[in-house]
């Protein structure tokens, strides 16, 4: 089996923590899944993750969580990717 974070997993295959996350998302209104995920991502970022690569990874993971968790009516959350500007 390939372990790709973009591929949906059956509940039996999910790590316990991911399963808990999926349970939380399933309790949300479909329209609120992405906004709340964005809030969660922001909260994690504010916990001290200042590295651009880490921040990008947070949002990248959050983007595909609805699909991974098989959330109805939601496939991905189109978060805006953080784009560092030119450093000159």
């Amino acid at each position, binding site marked *: 089996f390939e372990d790709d974070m973009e591929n949906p997993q059956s509940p039996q295959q999910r790590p316990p923590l991911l399963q808990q996350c999926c349970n939380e998302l399933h309790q949300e209104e479909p329209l609120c899944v992405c*906004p709340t995920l964005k809030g*969660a991502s922001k909260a994690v970022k504010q916990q001290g993750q200042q590295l651009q690569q880490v921040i990008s990874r947070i949002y990248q993971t959050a983007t595909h969580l609805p699909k991974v968790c098989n959330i109805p009516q939601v496939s991905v959350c189109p978060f805006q990717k953080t784009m560092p500007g030119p450093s000159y």
Partner: protein
Amino acid sequence: PAGPFRIPKCRKEFQQAQHLRACQQWLHKQAMQSGSG
């Protein structure tokens, strides 16, 4: 009289200490585990 249909209100005031706590932990774990590649 039926009022106007109201879209489900999302929780604007995000409570980072409680809401989607498992998801926050999962996002943090995934971000920190990411290596080169």
